């Protein structure tokens, strides 16, 4: 029986690859937008401007303090009541973007705060405008602390994108869920799903660890 199911599973393997592709697209879009907005918000947050600091702080706490499933339900069920019509995929991308923004904002703000104050003063007294200070002096140094957790955050986003299956986006987890109805071999089907996730996230985890080692060694030698 198991051999038969295994045969069936191989037959519908392309379906899994489609799911994997959807996972990659949804999480890539989420993390690209999340990185952009997260950087902007993180830079604003590190500036200690009261006008921005409060709303960003509340936003970050609310997103970090609630489960992603609840956020997805809010985006998918409640936004339409406020007149924002979304199909499942764009709701998924929006929810992932919001999640990514909140977490990346904290990472970026932390990285910028870790740059010694003297760097700010030196670049200010060299007559650079604040944008140039950030672009030429602060952010290149902050990247050293930002990059490893940022890649780690990408892994978390890819994994969180599995939750998107609850609103009917046919990505990898949803494919597994749909398959297990027809091929009642839960261990086999979800092992396959797990392996496919492993294939994307494990290299990223290794990259994050590698970056951490490489960049922190540089810091000691400073």
């Amino acid at each position, binding site marked *: 029986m198991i051999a038969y199911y295994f045969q069936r599973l191989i037959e519908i393997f392309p379906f899994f690859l489609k799911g994997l592709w959807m996972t990659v697209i949804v999480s890539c879009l989420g993390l690209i937008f999340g990185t952009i907005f997260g950087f902007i918000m993180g830079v604003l947050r590190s500036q200690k401007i009261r006008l921005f600091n409060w709303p960003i702080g509340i936003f970050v*706490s*609310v997103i*970090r*303090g*609630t*489960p*992603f*499933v*609840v*956020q997805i*339900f*809010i985006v998918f*069920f*409640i936004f339409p*009541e*406020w007149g924002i019509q979304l199909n499942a995929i764009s709701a998924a991308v929006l929810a992932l973007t919001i999640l990514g923004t909140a977490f990346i904002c904290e990472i970026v703000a932390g990285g910028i705060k870790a740059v010694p104050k003297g760097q700010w003063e030196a670049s200010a007294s060299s007559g650079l405008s604040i944008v140039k200070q950030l672009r030429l002096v602060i952010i290149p140094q902050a990247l050293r602390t930002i990059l490893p957790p940022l890649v780690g955050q990408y*892994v978390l986003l890819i*994994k*969180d*994108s*599995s*939750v998107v*299956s*609850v609103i009917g986006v046919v990505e990898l*987890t949803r494919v*597994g*869920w749909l398959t*297990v109805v027809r091929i*009642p*071999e*839960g*261990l086999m*089907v*979800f*092992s396959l*799903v*797990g392996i496919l*996730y*492993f294939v994307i*996230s*494990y290299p990223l*985890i290794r990259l994050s660890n590698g970056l951490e080692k490489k960049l922190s060694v540089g810091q000691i030698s400073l």
Partner: protein
Amino acid sequence: MLEGFNFRIIWEYMPLFLEGLRNTFLISILSIFLALIVGVIACGGRLSRWKFLRGISIIYIESIRSTPLLVQIYFFYFGLPTLGIRIPEIQTGILALMLNSGAYIAEIVRAGITSVPNGQIEAGMSSGLNYFQRMRFIILPQAIGVTVPPLLGQAIVLVKDSALLSLISVMELTRCGQVLTSERFMPTEAFFTVAFLYLCIYFCLKYLADWSQKRLIFKETY
């Protein structure tokens, strides 16, 4: 935006929400304790001298860390019955949460133990302390201070992760929101209440984590 917000319905469903909150609480507390045990064992395996134990622990930790929790939950939910094991959903959920958090806790504990400088261990050895004495008097007192704040962070993650159990119909907080949505079609009331209750838990744990960060981490005095 929220002019039609119906507090009466929330009040009416309050007993349900409180029951959900209680279940979320119980599930999280039970899982974190079990995960602590699993984590310490896995960490022991990870640091052990035997290649076999080390190999198994590494496979366990890495495979958990690079697959989404939802896939793990489905793996047990659909997989255990095919092995002939039938347990209630809530136990399946706790099993999945326990194994998931256990892997992360193993890494946290390992980071804590390896954060103790080698010189300390060598000093302990040359003072004639045996392995258990070194653990008891030198390594653990220093490691625990470093470990507790990230453990509380993991507890926060676990409370949020327990929301995913709603997808295998465990009656916890998020599930209550889904019930209210399907019975009365009031997603706004339902999910904002759920989010609010999660935020309450989050802020309590966050306060604890910040406090422990301040109190427990040894300041470098030299």
